[in-house]
């Protein structure tokens, strides 16, 4: 019996659906495992996880939760310049209000955690956050987690009226078809490294990729009752180094 701890980033989005799918997916995993699915809302929640899911939701919204830590750092810098007693005031100035997550730097903790080569899976908005390059037809830039050598396009298929369901073709190892649900989905415009493996395609275009310990899907397996991607990710978690 092996323990597997998977965290789901719970800032915003469909995280309960992921939890449910993981619980179902344990039946599809060959090995004897004890799966724990945990909610991640603070940096300390990352401790000891074998894998982390960045669920679908709004990438802009989630990136704001990630960015708040950066604002604190700026606040500290201003504070230090003004003598240390006024750090708090510096934080206040940098954010317009006393920061809500003082002393918590999510991005930094996340990068730290990722450096241990733990498994990560981004669905939809999560794919955007994991991509090294993001093309946007609007000008607002987002803070990205990065790591995955692909270029993605946000809201690539259009607005909600253009959202759709379609059958996907899986690669040989996974085999067969998969029900793809695309909600204001991003697309993968290009694959920028030979390390990236295509797991699923739609009309021959990649819609799911993996690269070492990173997995990404532009669609939502958590909204279907097909749990193969969740099982695939559990297996990825089993293969990551367990440093704890």
């Amino acid at each position, binding site marked *: 019996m092996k323990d597997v701890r998977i965290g789901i980033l719970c800032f915003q989005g469909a995280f309960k659906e992921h939890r449910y799918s993981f619980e179902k997916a344990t039946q599809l995993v060959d090995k004897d495992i004890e799966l724990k699915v945990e909610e991640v809302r603070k940096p300390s929640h990352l401790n000891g996880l074998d894998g982390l899911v960045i669920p679908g939701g709004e990438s802009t919204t989630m990136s704001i939760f990630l960015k708040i830590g950066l604002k604190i750092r700026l606040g500290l810098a201003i504070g230090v310049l003004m003598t240390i007693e006024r750090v708090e005031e510096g934080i206040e100035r940098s954010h317009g209000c006393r920061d809500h997550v003082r002393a918590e730097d999510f991005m930094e903790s996340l990068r730290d955690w990722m450096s241990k080569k733990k498994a990560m899976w981004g669905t939809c908005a999560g794919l955007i956050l994991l991509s090294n390059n993001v093309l946007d037809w609007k000008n607002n830039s987002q803070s990205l987690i990065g790591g995955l050598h692909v270029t993605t396009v946000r809201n690539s*298929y259009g607005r909600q009226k253009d959202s759709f369901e379609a059958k996907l073709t899986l690669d040989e190892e996974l085999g067969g078809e998969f029900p793809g649900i695309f909600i204001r989905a991003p697309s993968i415009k290009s694959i920028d490294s030979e390390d990236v493996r295509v797991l699923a395609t739609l009309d021959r275009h990649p819609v799911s990729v993996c690269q070492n310990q990173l997995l990404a899907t532009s669609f939502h397996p958590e909204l279907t009752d097909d749990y193969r991607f969740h099982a695939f990710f559990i297996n990825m978690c089993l293969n990551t180094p367990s440093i704890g």
Partner: protein
Amino acid sequence: MPILPGVKDGKPLNEGQDTVPSIGFGTFTVKSGLAQMAKGGVVMDVTNAEQARIAEQAGACAVMALERVPADIRKDGGVARMSDPKKIKEICETVSIPVMAKARIGHFAEAQILEALGVDMVDESEVLTQADYENHIDKRQFKIPFVCGARNLGEALRRIAEGAAMIRTKGEAGTGNVVEAVKHARTIKRQINFGKSMDEEELYSYAKELQVPYDLLVKTVEMGRLPIVNFAAGGLATPADVSLLMQLGVDGVFVGSGIFKSSNPEKRAVAMVQAVTHYKDAKKMAEISEDLGEPMVGLNCDDIGEKWSLKESSRD
């Protein structure tokens, strides 16, 4: 380095027609999927592009475009209608998060216009003046999802039967008073629990009493919650209000007048977004709630002339 055909310099794919697959647009899965992606988020009422930008930067998961915020509709009176398409287009161009817009109850032509404008979700809303005494919009005819208000389980399930992909409590919009939203959230919860205590014969009678399809009621009782995403709306003005409703089991919140009628909209908007994520953590809620400036001036629900939550088809 393969470049996919059909995606041009980051422009949306729907501009070219060659790559969009021909099956499965506007299915119920796709409609309710958008609501599922909004979970754990705040939808903020905005009247123009500038407010929409503030909402997006604060972390709203969607914005709701309307002509006037509910508090102003209460103050000014008159007929409240769908927003000017020009305003909606400006908002759609300004933000990358989903844009929702309100249509009057029963006014399917307004909803058709909103769909043509590319709005991501329509709110068939009691906040606007009612357009049909007897009927709600047949929401199944649309490719885009609808959210509808409900005071109780009967209303919620009737709206779902008509094709709504998301439900919200009605509350009492424009008051800054959370009491009605609490009442509606608790009523829905209690009625589902009541159904759970029933055997099949009793559920038949209960379906008749609630005037809802039997199968839908059975499914709801089995799941122990509404079968689609359920948000709170109508009078939420503080982070604590958000936490209260989240703890009563809703999936997210709508905030209307509460933000742009407060003294510091930017700060309050950020706080409301943080609250929906950290609602269980009282210590964090204390930090979030601190020094937000004056909230909107509230109204007691007994003092208001008209209860909007009573707007409903007369046959309901």
